[in-house]
C-alpha cells in the first residue's frame, strides 16, 4: 500500500489521482463538507469544473470509506465489549489474521475464530475498561488514524484500546472447576495499547472487512475496578501453537516476542 502524509486540511493535487487520504479525526469530514467547491481558489482555473468535481467526488468517496472503517471499528470494539465474539469474527475477511500476545492467528474461520470464540470467550477478553490508574494513555497514543489506498480497495488504521484481558485459571482445585462452571475462575488484568489494523474491501458486497489486527499492547497491569492500586505485570506470551495448545495461535510471532522483551 502506498502512503501519503497529507492531513485533513491539505488539498491534494487534483490533477493526480494517485493519492491516499489520511484523516486524523472524523472532523475532517465536516471540514471537507463545509468547503464549497467554488470557494477553492484554483477551481475552474487549472483543471476546469470537471476536474474539481472529480477531485471532490474522490475526496467524498474517500471520506465515506473512512467513515465506514470507523463504523467497522466501532462495531469491532462494541462486539468485543459485549462478548459477542461470533459477531467479531464476521467482521473479518476470509484470509484475515490477528497478532495477539505473541501469536499469529490465521484465517477467519480457523485461527481468528479460535482466538475470539475460544480464547477470548473463555477469558471474557475485550471488555472495555478505563485505563488502570497511573497507566493512562499518552495523548499521542490516543490519536486515531485511517488511511485509504489509492484504489480504495485497502486501508489501514490505528486505534487506541483499553480492555480487560482474561485467562481461565488452570487448576485441579474444585473451587476453580466450580467457578468455571458458572463463568468465573478467570484471571483478569488490564491491557492498553493500539490496534494496528488493515482492511480490505470485500469483493462480494463491497463492504470493508478487517484483514488483520495487531494488538500492540503498550502496558499490562493488574487492576480491577474498585481496587486502589494498579501494578504492571508480565503475562507469558503464547509458547505453543495449535493444536498443542487447543486455543493457541497458528504460529508464534517473533517480532511480538522481541517487542515484549524490549
Amino acid at each position: 500500500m502506498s502512503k501519503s502524509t497529507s492531513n485533513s486540511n491539505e488539498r491534494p493535487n487534483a490533477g493526480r489521482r494517485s493519492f491516499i487520504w489520511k484523516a486524523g479525526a472524523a472532523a475532517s469530514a465536516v471540514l471537507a463538507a463545509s468547503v464549497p467547491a467554488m470557494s477553492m481558489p484554483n477551481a475552474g482555473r487549472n483543471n476546469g469544473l470537471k476536474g474539481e468535481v472529480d477531485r471532490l467526488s474522490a475526496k467524498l468517496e474517500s471520506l465515506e470509506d473512512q467513515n465506514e472503517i470507523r463504523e467497522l471499528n466501532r462495531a469491532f470494539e462494541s462486539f468485543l465489549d459485549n462478548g459477542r465474539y461470533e459477531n467479531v469474527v464476521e467482521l473479518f475477511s476470509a484470509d484475515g489474521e490477528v497478532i495477539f500476545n505473541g501469536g499469529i492467528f490465521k484465517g477467519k474461520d480457523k485461527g481468528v475464530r479460535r482466538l475470539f470464540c475460544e480464547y477470548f470467550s473463555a477469558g471474557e477478553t475485550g471488555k472495555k475498561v478505563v485505563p488502570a490508574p497511573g497507566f493512562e494513555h499518552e495523548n499521542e497514543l490516543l490519536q486515531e488514524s485511517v488511511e485509504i489506498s489509492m484504489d480504495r480497495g485497502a486501508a489501514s488504521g490505528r486505534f487506541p484500546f483499553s480492555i480487560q484481558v482474561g485467562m481461565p485459571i488452570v487448576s485441579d482445585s474444585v473451587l476453580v472447576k466450580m467457578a468455571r462452571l458458572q463463568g468465573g475462575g478467570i484471571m483478569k488484568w488490564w491491557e492498553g495499547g493500539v490496534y494496528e489494523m488493515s482492511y480490505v474491501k470485500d469483493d462480494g458486497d463491497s463492504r470493508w472487512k478487517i484483514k488483520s489486527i495487531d494488538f500492540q499492547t503498550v502496558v499490562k497491569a493488574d487492576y480491577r475496578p474498585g481496587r486502589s492500586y494498579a501494578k504492571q505485570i508480565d503475562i507469558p506470551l503464547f509458547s505453543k501453537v495449535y493444536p498443542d495448545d487447543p486455543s493457541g495461535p497458528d504460529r508464534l510471532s517473533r517480532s511480538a516476542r522481541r517487542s515484549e522483551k524490549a
Partner: protein
Amino acid sequence: MNIPMHRFKYTKLTKDEIGKKLKPTYDGPESVSELSDALSGKSLKIVTKEGPVLEYTFKSKNELTLVEDGGSKIKSGYGALTLKQMVFFSHMIPGTQKGYNVFADLDTDLVTVIEVWFSSDTKENAMMGPPIEIDAREVQRQIYYGYIETAGKEAPEKLHHLTNRIEGKGMYWKQDTGVETLEFYASVMSTNFVELTRHVDDLSYCAPTDYVLINDNMFVYDRTECEFSGIMTMYAVDLFTQSQIGMRLGFNEKDKLEYYMFRGKGKVVGHLTALEPFDEHGETLNMGFGPAPASDQPPPKAPKGQRRAYRPARSYENMTAEEINRIAEKNTITFTDNPNTPQAQAGMMSGNTLPYSELLAGKEFTLRYDHGPVYNYKVSDAYNLEWKKEGESKWRKETYRAFEADEKLLFFAHMHTGAKPPVSVKIALDLTNGLTTCIYSKVGSEYYGNEVTYEAFFGVAEMEGLESAKYLRHEFTDELVGRGFTRTYSDNMTSMHLYTTPHSSAWTIYMPDQTLGMQWCAPALYVKLREGVYIFDLVEEACNGAETCIIENDKTMHASGFGFHGGKDGINLGVIGAIARDLGQYKVKEYFGPHARRKGE
C-alpha cells in the same frame, strides 16, 4: 437413614419402572393437613410467558380438568393448600411422567408455574470428561411466570421473577409430617439443608434451588436433590408468619414414591451477609451462565429444564490404592514454592499465605498423643526437620512449613515420605502450654484410592522450657457452627465457607459480581485451640478427595494451613492461605448433638 447421602448408592430406576411407580400420583398428592377447597367449582385460565396456556376447571377439592395449550381435556386428581392470598395446587398428568405445580397469588393474579417431569433423557456438561447422563429418577423442572387471565383486564407487565433477596437467609422448618429440616439459603442457586429427622447424622447437603420473589414477605422455593435421590421439594413461604405450604415429589432412598403436600411452621435462624453491590434489589439475577447479553440483544433462551447442578461424584476419577502408591513413588510434590516467598507460589490457593515461621528452628521435642502416635522431632531450620516414631532408631528427614497462626501457636506440616498409602501430618503446637493436635491424613478411603481420610489426635508436647498439661487438651468444638466466612485465597479466587453442622461444612463460589453461586459440602471436623482460634479440616468426599486443613483465627481474620491430595498428577502437600470476612452466623447449635432440642421431642 444412617448412610450419608453422598455415599448412598441410589437405584438407577428405568423410565418404565418410574412410569409404574407414578400411577398413584394421578389421583393427586397425599396430605396430612386437610387439603383446601378454595378452588372447587372455579375455572382459571393461566397464561404464562414463554410457556403454556393452562385452562383449569376444578370440579371438587381433589379433581380437576386441564386444557393445555388448547389441546384436549385432561382429567386428573390434584391437591391444593392456601397461605394467606396464595393458593398452591399440584397435580400430575395421567399417562405421563409430568405434572404442574401452580402458585397463584389471588391478590395480584400473578402466577408461578413449575412444570415437573421424570425420565428427562438428557445429558449435562460435566466439570471434566464426557457429558453426564441425568438419572431418570431426578425430577426436572421448568419455571414459567404468568397470570390469571381475566376478561376485560390487561395482561400485567411485571411478573414474578427469580431473586437474590433470599440469599443468606437460614430457616428451621417443621412440616405437618413431623419432618424437620434446617435450610440455609446461602446461594442464589443452591441450598444447604440438614435433615434433622430423616437422617441420624448431623450432616448438611446441597441441592440446586430456585428462589422466586412473590412480594417482600413471600417467596416460592424449589430444590432438587441432584446427585442423590433426585427428589424435589417446593413450597411457598410467608416470612411474616414463618409458614409454608409445599409439595414433595420423587423417589426416596428405598425407591418409594413420595408425593405429598404439606404445611410447615418455621423460624428464621439468621442471615449471612450478602456481598452484592448495594444497588442490587433482587429484580434481576446473575446466574453466571456466561457473559451478559449485549444491551440490544435478548438474553439467550436456556434449554428447557436447564439448571446449574454440581455433580462431583459422577465426574470424579476414581483411582485404586495401588495406582496411588505407584504415583506416589514417581511424583510426590511437597511445598513446591520458594520457601522465602510463600505468597509468590504459583497457584490461587496460596496468594494470601502467611509468612513462614522460624519458631521451631533448632528445637528438639516429643509430641505425645493420647491413644495415638508419639513422635520425636529435631528441627534443623525453618524448612527442614527430622522425625521418628518413639522407639525407632532411625531419624527421617522431611521438608516442612510452619505458620505462626496465633501468638506462639505453630501450625506445621510434612509428609511421611515413603508411607503407603501416602501420609501427611498437620500439627498445631502451642508453645505457651504444650498442647498439640495432630491431623493425621492418608490418601485412600474405603470408597476411593484417591480420597483423603483424616483423624485428629490430641496430646501434649515435651520440650525444654515447656510445662505441659496433664489433663487439659485441645477439643472438638461446635463454636463455629452456623458461621460463614469469605475465604480470599488470591485476588482471583474467593469462596465462602459455611460451617453448617458440627460435622460438616459447605463451600460456595462467588460469581464475578460477588453473588454466591455453586456450592457443595462435605463432612468436616472442628477443633478449638484457643479462644477464637480453631482448626477446620475438610475432605471433599465423593468429590475430588482433597483435604483442606486450616487454622482459622478470629482475631486476624486470616486462615492458614495446608492442602493435601492424591490424583493422577501425583501426591501433593501444599500451603493454603486466605484472608477472611465474617459473614455472620446462623443460630443453629441447639439443633445438633446428642442433646439436641429435637431429639426425643
